[in-house]
């Protein structure tokens, strides 16, 4: 569940959950009672107002299971999904409280209910919900803290997660608090820390297991429902009640949603429009919770129980089956009615994409989501205290969202790359089956392109159908090319909360690609402005470090690469840099204009390394870099003039989450590389020292590494693909972790291959090695 979205929309979610459920319960109950008074409900249904209220309370709760199951198919936008889903989660507390209160009232008999009892009921609502949440948070804290120390006992991590989460549930149940809320809060609260702490394998294990268990549980519940429906001893039919209930729940839900939305839109930045409201009211599915609650009724106290059971069964079936099945066509129909239908020209299609990207970018600049004062405060607090306490130290350093995405992309990319057989042949003559890689496939034919576009391709049937002439066919080809090839702007992302597919999808791959290109471009533009400065100065230094050969190669590659990529960007301080301390030890500390001359050195190392190496030497005057301490807000961000046309880029790895991205990318790659070396432990928790030693031998081998990766299909288009390939290759090495055993001998060779100083990759590669030495 996307926790960020959840908290963004928390106001709306709470409103719908609490106010909406209360509204539904009361109106449905009262209306049914009115119906009975009016005589439509047979008198054999002996129920008073309280009974009807009780019934109303249990039938009005939206069920998370059913909602998830249905909305997965519908692919509504994320906000809508999270609102409905969040509502269904949080209304559990309200439902439970209402149910218990009404139940106890019914048991006491309506005559005995006094005013204080109502107050007690309201108070218990708060106690139950907040208490449940509190229990959940306590266990979340416990879980996060425990996983911090499980580095040596990885195997128990999934177990810990399950057990502590289940313990949260049981504890809440024991104390008669809202158990669903407890588990929800536990999950929400600990997600960030646990994800950072536990190993990749454990994460996978937990994810898949939970999905399986959830599927099973759901199936069982609905089976129970079905079987109970068939067993007629359990229920008794009354048409008036059933039909009335069906009508009222739909009707009152719709009204409730409309009213609440109108109220909420006054406060929301992004209002919920009519379509959203329709989907929300239509998507309020009832499910197993209602059924469970109705079965639990005591027949002696509630004589109409059988009628209620029958009604509940019908309601659940109706909502899940009828509403669930029809919601997708409904959504489609509503949308299709609004959009015009004309064949877009190539221009329009392209520009549409451009505009979407522009809009997304401007929204980010404006800080569409970033305003919230309290969230900022919370993030500060979290960064300073909580994360340090609950996250493993190494994980703490590298927790940045983009890096995280990038890292995961790397892994998956590498895995899929290797799965496809990979066309990288090591000098040891690797004999993986050589299926065509993505690169070669892409250039073969249009059909391949179409196939590769996958399910997200725009099935622009119009285009296909009217292909008559060569030009039309060309048109079609281009349309499909664009559809498959263009990066999808943010707006078009679908909700990603699927229960059955755990894919982090094309979005992340796209993010990674774009990210790499952007970084590379920024680097290039930065380089292009100042690469004349102090070329010679770097040479002696580099000679000292023994990297000269590679640097020379890199340099030529770089200059080759530059002209075709002249995008005309202005001189920019593309990268925020801080001087790397130890690197400069070798250089003449006597140079006074060091401050201006020092190259920007990418330090692909974790900050703690520098910490360990202590205060820097005299040459550090160049760089006011003692701001190694992570939380320091003034981490040295010196723009240093670019020095020599190659890899003297040093960027401090700072652990601030919103730090300059290239830093984190370096870290990411560093981690990937270090994970290569460390056989036993997964990347995230790599002890920093390990990065130093193992990379050293690799550095020496660089010059021999083949300069041309086999099957480079596009020599003219050097940068992004090579970079992407390097990215992929790097990730490939990191992918080794899950496949250590098989590919172990491969890794060493692969390293060399991928560390080949191709074009801009070399910069990154080189830097690894440089830092590795220290």
């Amino acid at each position, binding site marked *: 569940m996307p926790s960020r979205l959840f908290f963004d929309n928390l106001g709306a979610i709470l409103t719908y959950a609490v106010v909406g459920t209360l509204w539904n319960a009361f109106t449905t109950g009262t209306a049914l009672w009115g119906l009975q008074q009016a005589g439509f409900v047979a008198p054999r249904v002996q129920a008073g107002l309280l009974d009807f209220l009780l019934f109303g309370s249990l039938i009005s709760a939206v069920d998370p299971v059913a909602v998830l199951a249905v909305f997965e198919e519908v692919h509504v936008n994320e906000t809508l999904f999270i609102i409905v889903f969040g509502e269904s989660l949080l209304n559990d507390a309200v439902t439970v409280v209402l149910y218990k209160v009404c139940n106890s009232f019914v048991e006491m008999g309506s005559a005995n209910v006094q005013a204080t009892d109502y107050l007690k009921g309201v108070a218990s609502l708060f106690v139950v919900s907040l208490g449940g949440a509190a229990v959940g948070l306590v266990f979340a804290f416990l879980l996060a803290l425990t996983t911090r120390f499980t580095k040596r006992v990885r195997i128990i991590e999934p177990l810990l997660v399950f057990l502590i989460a289940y313990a949260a549930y049981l504890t809440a149940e024991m104390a008669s608090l809202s158990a669903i809320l407890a588990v929800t809060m536990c999950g929400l609260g600990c997600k960030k820390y646990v994800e950072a702490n536990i190993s990749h394998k454990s994460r996978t294990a937990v994810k898949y297991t939970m999905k399986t268990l959830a599927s099973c549980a759901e199936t069982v519940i609905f089976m129970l429902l079905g079987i109970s429906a068939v067993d007629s001893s359990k229920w008794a039919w009354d048409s008036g009640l059933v039909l009335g209930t069906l009508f009222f729940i739909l009707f009152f839900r719709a009204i409730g949603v409309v009213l609440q939305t109108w109220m909420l839109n006054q406060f929301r930045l992004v209002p919920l429009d009519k379509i959203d409201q329709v989907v929300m009211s239509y998507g309020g599915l009832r499910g197993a919770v209602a059924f469970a609650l109705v079965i639990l009724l005591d027949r002696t106290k509630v004589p109409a129980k059988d009628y209620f059971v029958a009604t509940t069964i019908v309601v659940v079936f109706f909502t899940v089956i009828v509403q669930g099945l029809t919601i997708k066509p409904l959504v489609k129909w509503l949308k299709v009615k609004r959009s015009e239908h004309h064949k877009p020209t190539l221009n329009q299609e392209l*520009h549409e994409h451009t*505009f979407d990207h522009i*809009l997304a970018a401007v929204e980010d600049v404006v800080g569409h989501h970033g305003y919230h004062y309290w969230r900022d405060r919370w993030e500060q607090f979290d960064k300073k205290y909580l994360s340090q306490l609950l996250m493993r130290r190494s994980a703490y350093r590298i927790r940045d969202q983009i890096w995280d995405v990038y890292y995961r992309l790397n892994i998956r990319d590498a895995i899929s790359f290797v799965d496809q057989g990979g066309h990288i042949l090591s000098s040891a003559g690797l004999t993986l089956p050589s299926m065509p890689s993505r690169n070669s496939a892409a250039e073969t034919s249009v059909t391949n392109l179409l196939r590769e576009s996958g399910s997200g391709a725009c099935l622009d049937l119009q285009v296909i159908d009217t292909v008559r002439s060569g030009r039309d066919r060309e048109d079609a080809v281009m349309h499909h090319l664009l559809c*498959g090839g263009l990066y999808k702007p943010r707006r078009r992302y679908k909700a990603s909360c699927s229960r059955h597919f755990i894919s982090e999808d094309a979005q992340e791959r796209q993010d990674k690609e774009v990210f790499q290109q952007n970084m590379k471009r920024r680097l290039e533009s930065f380089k292009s402005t100042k690469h004349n400065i102090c070329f010679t100065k770097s040479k002696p230094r580099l000679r000292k470090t023994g990297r000269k050969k590679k640097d020379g190669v890199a340099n030529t590659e770089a200059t080759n690469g530059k002209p075709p990529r002249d995008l005309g960007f*202005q001189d920019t301080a593309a990268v925020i840099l801080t001087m790397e301390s130890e690197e400069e030890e070798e250089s003449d500390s006597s140079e006074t204009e060091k401050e201006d001359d020092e190259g920007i050195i990418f330090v692909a190392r974790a900050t703690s390394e520098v910490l360990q190496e202590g205060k820097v030497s005299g040459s550090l005057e160049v760089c006011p870099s003692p701001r190694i301490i992570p939380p320091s807000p003034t981490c040295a961000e010196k723009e240093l003039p670019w020095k020599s046309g190659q890899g003297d880029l040093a960027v401090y790895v700072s652990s601030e989450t919103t730090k300059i991205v290239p830093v984190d990318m370096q870290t990411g790659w560093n981690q990937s590389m270090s994970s290569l070396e460390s056989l036993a432990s997964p990347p995230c928790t790599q002890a920093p020292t390990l990065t130093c030693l193992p990379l050293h031998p690799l550095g020496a081998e660089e010059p021999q590494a083949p300069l041309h990766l086999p099957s480079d299909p596009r020599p003219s288009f050097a940068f992004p*693909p090579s970079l992407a390939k390097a990215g992929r290759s790097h990730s490939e090495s990191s992918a080794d972790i899950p496949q250590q055993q098989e590919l172990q001998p491969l890794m060493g060779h692969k390293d060399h291959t991928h560390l080949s100083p191709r074009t801009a990759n070399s910069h990154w590669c080189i830097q690894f090695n440089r830092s590795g030495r220290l």
Partner: protein
Amino acid sequence: MGSRSSHAAVIPDVDTIRRETGFSQASLLRLHHRFRALDRDKKGYLSRMDLQQIGALAVNPLGDCIIDSFFPSRSQRLDFSGFVRVLAHFRPVEEESPGIRDPKQPEPLNSRMNKLRFAFQLYDLDGDGLISRQEMLQVLRLMVGVQVTEEQLESIADRTVQEADEDGDGAVSFLEFTKSLEKMNIEQKMSIRILK
């Protein structure tokens, strides 16, 4: 947060900006707040680095282009009025009949023409008022994944320019650009609701 109201006095030239851009007071305050949040070193202006720090821009294919468009030609500093002026392009267009507007006044920044002009400037990297095939190609390259080959890109760029180019000069002028997009709902596509 109650101290927000005092910020109005801090914004320099707030009235000029309001007139020029048409933002409401609340929006201006919000944008000023955001400006100050982005300006981490409290310099009083934004540099490219500040904008590049926005993580989400790094995964936007046009992120760098957008950043460049904020900075008026070749300058390295972006002050608040410049910041707001660019953002004003993205204000939603008010529903008013064109007859009411005073024809003597310059078009509001968020008019359709100005929105298109902004987009045009994004494409037109060398600022000569024409989108050449090269420039189209460059922008395309930014936006397309790595699996599309160079030849395919070139042919797409060719076709795109061909389609839009009417006077046959091999480049797309602003008018041709507008013409090719006349069916598109620019007002909606280039508006951010919160910037009222």
